[in-house]
């Protein structure tokens, strides 16, 4: 894999001047992934923060060909682009060379409204990488709940009310759903661990067929956190084992990072304004229940480490 020095020497394909928030997890994720191949890349983005923040006409932050068509269809759109590439290459109408196709979507555009298009594209086996930047909510439209929102988090559609203390459901395990499609490569990553993220992106872009990466993306706006704490929070999501780093390569699962000391879940919750209400004495059970669930899921994952899944 590339060293940090090599990575930093590569041309920036996602430039500064974009309008994503200070402390947003998305730009480092995108920049690192776009550096993970030397082949030309064509990208698509689902409607969301990344799309809105990077291409306000007549400006664009993308130095590569890029298309956004709608919210729920990034996987279908990139299917079309990738198919056109095969069709035109076969007919000799474009240069005969390797190209990479990447679709970016938030958790709204991926876990929820875009899951059908994603599932279809994975099943058909297009040669592309789908990257979900998971900030746990519809942040672009003002912090509404998604199926990736952590349980108990307050959002504008799952507020912490007098009767209902935030989101009532455990988040959907999208990576597991994707793994069930038996694609050549799927992984979870986090931008604070650049080496792990970059290595996974390299692998994902190298395999023939569909690849998927689910990447933790801190959101100061929606999490009610300080911009400068984003990478710390990303690390805590991993060290609490809420967001385990693992990959499934050709059917074999491997946990790529095991924290030396598993941190208590509440260490991740505490700095985030969206969990303020769970620290009221009457809501203490929410932290306990979450911790139990995390412990269970982490153990399940460890049980599968190194195994064919």
């Amino acid at each position: 894999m590339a060293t940090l020095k090599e990575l930093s020497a590569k041309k920036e394909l996602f430039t500064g001047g974009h309008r994503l928030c200070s402390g947003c997890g998305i730009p480092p994720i995108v920049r690192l992934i776009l550096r993970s191949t030397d082949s030309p890349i064509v990208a698509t983005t689902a409607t969301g923060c990344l799309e809105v923040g990077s291409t306000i006409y007549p400006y664009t932050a993308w130095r590569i060909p890029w298309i956004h068509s709608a919210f729920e269809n990034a996987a279908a759109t990139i299917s079309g682009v990738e198919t056109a590439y095969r069709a035109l290459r076969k007919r000799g109408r474009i240069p005969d060379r390797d190209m990479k196709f990447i679709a970016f979507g938030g958790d709204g555009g991926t876990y929820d409204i875009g899951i059908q298009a994603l599932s279809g594209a994975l099943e058909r086996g297009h040669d592309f990488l789908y990257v979900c930047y998971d900030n746990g909510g519809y942040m672009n439209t003002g912090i509404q709940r998604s199926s990736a929102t952590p349980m108990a988090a307050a959002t504008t559609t799952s507020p912490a009310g007098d009767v209902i203390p935030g989101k009532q459901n455990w988040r959907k395990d999208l990576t597991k759903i994707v793994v069930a499609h038996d694609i050549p490569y799927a992984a979870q990553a986090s931008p604070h661990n650049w080496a792990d993220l970059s290595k996974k992106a390299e692998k994902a872009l190298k395999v023939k067929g569909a690849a998927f990466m689910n990447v933790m993306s801190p959101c100061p706006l929606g999490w009610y956190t300080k911009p400068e704490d984003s990478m710390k929070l990303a690390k805590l999501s991993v060290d609490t084992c809420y967001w385990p780093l693992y990959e499934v390569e050709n059917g074999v699962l491997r946990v790529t990072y095991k924290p030396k000391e598993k941190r208590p879940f509440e260490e991740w919750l505490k700095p985030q304004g969206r969990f303020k209400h769970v620290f009221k004495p009457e809501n203490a059970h929410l932290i306990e229940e979450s911790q139990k669930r995390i412990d269970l899921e982490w153990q399940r994952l460890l049980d599968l480490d190194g195994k064919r899944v």
Partner: protein
Amino acid sequence: MAITAIKGKTALTGNSAIAYGMKQINPDVCAAYPITPSTQIAEEFSSYVADGAVQTEYVTVESEHSAMSACIGASAAGARVMTATSSQGLALMWEMLYVASGMRLPIVMTNVNRALSAPINIHCDHSDSMGARDAGWIQLYSETVQEGYDNLFQAMRIAEDLRVRIPAMVCFDGFITSHAIENIELLSDEEVQGFVGEFKAVNPLLDVERPVTYGALSLQDTYMEFKYQQSQAISRAKEVVIEVGKEFGKRFGREYGLFETYKLDDADVAVVILNSAAGTTKVAIDELRGKGIKAGLLRPRLYRPFPAVELSNALKHVKAIACLDRADSMSGFGGPLFNDIRSAMYELEARPKIISRIYGLGGRDYKVRDAIAVFDELENVKKTGVVDELMKYITI
């Protein structure tokens, strides 16, 4: 299994003719999802792909929304792209129809007209494409299998014309045209290729040396200019439709215009109607002419853009007109065709009386006697100058 057709006269269903036409075009990419009554287009075309009869890459998408999304991705990438659908499928594509036209992607789609749910119904009416009439697509309507087949090639030329670059929809009637076998004259592959020509991609995504951005966020300062350019482009399509229709006639002996008229020149009463029901109406007109009634017909072929001036000129001498809509806009004020035609006639000093009649929804039969009944009504309007009912459902 796909049919093996040969140049010259042959007998085909509408769906087989379209699949065969697509084979002759041999597009780069086709992304389609099967739906009654257009299913055979997807089936037969995939047979051509499976047999290596085309070089097309066929994407078996999981929905019509993804079909149009993949078409958009492929077209923006620089490919010649075709698809087909009907009814609920077109409805599911709705969002993406506007994206395709807004991005000025020359995708060509056959829409086999079928009713929309609810109640669910698989038979013919025009609710599907009429609902999409303002999605920024060129719409060509076809009376027969032959016209559907011929329109497919013309749609491609019109959509891809650099003065236009707007997606185009070819519509014909579900089951009546899609499943009925008609004698048609096929073109040779060379004739088709010579007519549609090579595809020229404009600003393709796959040109990585010259990266482009499709689908940027355009706000108050620019959105309206994009829409203005789109509006200008679809307006220009009218001239291109005429040009291409004439060239088609010159090459293959079947010329097409903006609309077809039948015994309209000296008509006192006329019906305006789309697609296959025009044939039934023509039979009624022949019968009525035998009785001395000056009945005529106008069948729009190009519905979007709407050739308002040409249509109103062609109809201005008629005393009473019935616009027969196979779709209701549920406005309580007549069908879409009625509203467009009536609005087009407003500029005339002496305007004909114009009524709206809704027929044939969900595949309800429209027979010669039903057409005659409409003409009887028109005769009465002509005589009395009085319109009793501006809008009415017939055959219920």
